[in-house]
């Protein structure tokens, strides 16, 4: 009994210590902003690594998600004779929820895991220590550009996912299943509100970008510098990101759309 309590206490202390380290780490990384302004090349390179290299995955996934939405939506809506509302259903689903959430989950699997593994390996091979001994702050030189690149890339990728998803839904709904093209676009245009839907979707994607990239760079920087430690940190990065994205999505949705 006492042993269990002791273990619980140790576990709780570890969790709170890690949360504290993560918060300090985030503030220190944010303070690296002046470096981005002085040396934009660092940020641009990371935008390419985490953003541009994720485009293919995000585009293909968005297209398939949109097509599935078109097919499933048509089946449900046609039972009620409301297949003209297919455009609204697809757009609302993608703009409000699926765009930001699925992009964040894919982003954590593609770019987040790569960031964790890269920083973790740099730690394991003493590259970060080497930088410190050369009087170069790894927080500014390595972590900050990756964090800012992730935060900037996520909303853009989410917008791309949403746009391509709508095109996929259109392709299935209009040319293949015969939904009226005018109704598809006009109902979407009249029902989707800029502030209520699009701005809230953008806010979600920015928040998810911060969460996913923060977790990814922190897990890499805080990992045990061994091959097992890096592997575990990479797994943690994806798992924690998924939980954090889905949990924060509920909170954000309740705040944005809850009565």
């Amino acid at each position, binding site marked *: 009994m006492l042993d269990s309590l002791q273990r619980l206490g140790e576990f709780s202390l570890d969790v709170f210590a890690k949360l504290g380290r993560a918060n300090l780490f985030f503030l220190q990384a944010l303070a690296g902003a002046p470096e981005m302004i002085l040396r934009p090349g660092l940020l641009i390179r990371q935008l390419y690594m985490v953003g541009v290299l994720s485009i293919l995955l995000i585009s293909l996934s968005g297209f398939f998600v949109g097509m599935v939405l078109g097919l499933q939506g048509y089946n449900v809506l046609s039972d009620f004779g409301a297949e003209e509302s297919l455009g609204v259903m697809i757009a609302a689903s993608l703009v409000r929820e699926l765009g930001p959430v699925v992009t964040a989950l894919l982003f954590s699997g593609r770019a987040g895991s790569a960031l964790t593994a890269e920083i973790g390996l*740099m730690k394991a*091979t*003493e*590259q970060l*220590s*080497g930088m*410190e*001994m*050369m*009087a*170069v*702050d790894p927080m500014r*030189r390595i972590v900050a550009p990756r964090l800012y690149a992730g935060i900037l890339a996520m909303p853009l990728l989410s917008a791309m996912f949403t746009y391509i998803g709508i095109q996929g839904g259109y392709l299935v709904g209009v040319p293949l299943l015969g939904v009226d093209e005018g109704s598809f676009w006009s109902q979407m245009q009249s029902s989707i509100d800029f502030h209520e839907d699009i701005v809230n979707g953008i806010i979600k994607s920015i928040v998810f970008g911060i969460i996913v990239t923060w977790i990814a760079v922190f897990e890499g920087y805080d990992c045990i510098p061994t091959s097992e430690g890096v592997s575990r940190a990479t797994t943690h990065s994806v798992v924690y990101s998924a939980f954090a994205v889905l949990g924060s999505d509920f909170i954000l949705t309740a705040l944005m759309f809850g009565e």
Partner: protein
Amino acid sequence: MEAVRDNESLYNHCKMTENRMDSSTDTVVQIRGLVFDRGRRRIFDGVDMNIRRGSITAIMGPSGTGKTTLLKLIGGQLRPKEGEILVDGEPVHRLSRRRLYLLRRRMGMLFQTGALLTDLNVFENVAFPLREHTDLPNSIIRTLVLMKLEAVGLRGARALMPAELSGGMARRVALARAIALDPMMIMYDEPFTGQDPISMGVLVKLIKTLNHALGLTSIVVSHDVQETASISDYIYVISEGKVVGEGTPQQLQHTDSPWVRQFMDGLPDGPVPFHYPAPDYHKDLLQC
């Protein structure tokens, strides 16, 4: 604001010069009463050391005695629990981050793995500290980098990536990078580990030559007795958190200390036991 920063830099520079002049004849690194714990384990328990300016000082001892930890303490990457570490007159563990980074520009460190940046080629790795800390034009940086690479015999390997280098070559590139900013001292962490005889000979020669040619102070952490003793001016042997022997290589060859004897002669048993602490062997076998 700029003027204040300039004055502050000038003050720091004058203070550093003053400190250097105070101790110009003797020590670059002074360690007094060093105590350091890792978790519940005591790594150093009252260690005192003096590293003389211009010398090659070896810190030797069995694996796991904290030799690398000592270098990290000298470099300010770790903080001691008690005691004081002065590098060029400055207490590294009490310096602000900015002043510590200024001091580190005058210290080079060669890591066991080389610690080369894997996304940069050999040239860019050596140019890295120059690009980070100076505003020199590319033509000057090119000249400086080629001079450093020539010194370690790898000018022709400038376009190679770290993954294309052998272990010995990687350490030589790391050495070229460590001397890029013309530091006052270099710390070598196990420079000979895992090297073939040729690479080891090259590294031994480079450490000695560079130390004398560039007027450096070198601290070599190693457990390769013969190679290290052949280039060292002074040796500290540490074991179980304490300095168990010190002196010139000749003095240590004739010492009676059982700790030093076991280490220098490579004896399997002695003060450092062959067996890890365990219950009685016979009782242990018969227990099940």
